[in-house]
């Protein structure tokens, strides 16, 4: 099968029934693997890694802070992709998937902000600073809240999907800024990337990178967070599809008397 044919085959999941049937089949795999990776990664990181020579035991916060921050940004990018699909192809499942992902993004952003503040206090001497990365992350959090509020505020689901998709496009600026703010402004308290940096992995740059002792359990936690995100979005999208069907059935019942 060619790549174009494979890509076209994806559109069959725009059918709610097909989506529900497939997601119910794959969900146990995602729940189970995400829980296994998270438990293994967190236990490995918390119990079996040494303290850092500079940061002491606070280095253990990395196993929650980095995966949560990564998912906070990538969740918005996933919402951007599904919102674009809605705007271009008008597939309801894609709009509902974006809606279903938003609360997951809120929690990921909240974990990243909370663990960042808790970690920052002993390391920087402050819970919060108006640093480019921290500030863009806070704005991303506010965009998430605004996105959910807009869905709730508009009665007509198609209008709500249109407006929230536009909001998602605008908010993408802050999702990207959250990732690259340190590189753009080169100032503030937050360090630059020390985990997912191509030059650090290949050894072509000389900047400090996270040691392998911390990197492997961190990688396991990142995989766990990604799988948990997929499980939650699949499950929650199914819920949104059913909630939409309930509305449609109630409307039909009212019309038929």
């Amino acid at each position, binding site marked *: 099968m060619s790549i174009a044919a494979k890509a076209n085959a994806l559109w069959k999941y725009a059918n709610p029934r097909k989506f529900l049937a497939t997601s119910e089949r794959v969900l146990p795999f995602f729940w189970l693997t995400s829980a296994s990776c998270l438990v293994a990664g*967190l236990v490995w990181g*918390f*119990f079996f890694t040494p*303290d850092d020579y500079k940061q*002491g*035991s*606070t280095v*253990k*916060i990395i196993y*929650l*802070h980095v995966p*949560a921050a990564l998912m906070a940004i990538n969740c918005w990018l996933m919402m951007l992709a599904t919102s674009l699909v809605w705007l271009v192809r008008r597939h309801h499942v894609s709009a509902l998937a974006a809606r279903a992902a938003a*609360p*997951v993004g809120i*929690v990921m952003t*909240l*974990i990243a902000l*909370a*663990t960042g503040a*808790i*970690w920052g*206090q*002993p390391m920087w001497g402050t819970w919060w600073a108006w640093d480019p990365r921290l500030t863009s992350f806070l704005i991303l959090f506010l965009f998430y809240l605004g996105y959910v509020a807009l869905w709730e505020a508009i009665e007509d689901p198609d209008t709500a999907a249109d407006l929230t998709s536009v909001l998602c496009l605008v908010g993408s600026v802050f999702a990207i800024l959250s990732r690259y703010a340190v590189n753009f402004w080169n100032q503030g308290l937050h360090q630059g990337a020390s985990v997912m940096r191509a030059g650090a992995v290949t050894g072509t740059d000389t900047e400090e990178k996270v040691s392998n002792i911390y990197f492997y359990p961190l990688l396991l936690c990142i995989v766990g967070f990604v799988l*948990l995100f997929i499980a*939650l979005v699949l*499950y*929650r999208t*199914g*819920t949104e599809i*059913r*909630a939409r*069907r*309930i509305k449609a*059935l*109630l409307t*039909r*019942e009212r019309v038929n008397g």
Partner: protein
Amino acid sequence: MIPDLGKYADTVLSAYAASIVLLIALVLFSVIRGRKVRAEMEKLEQRMSRHG
């Protein structure tokens, strides 16, 4: 059981507690709402099929 976290014990434990509580709350809330909506839909479909 818990490793020696030194003077940062409160910092590390509070970061883990906050994150785990938030993650569990997210999963629980999603599953509870999912089950409620599914039951509601099945009830409605049964009612509508009975009434044609």
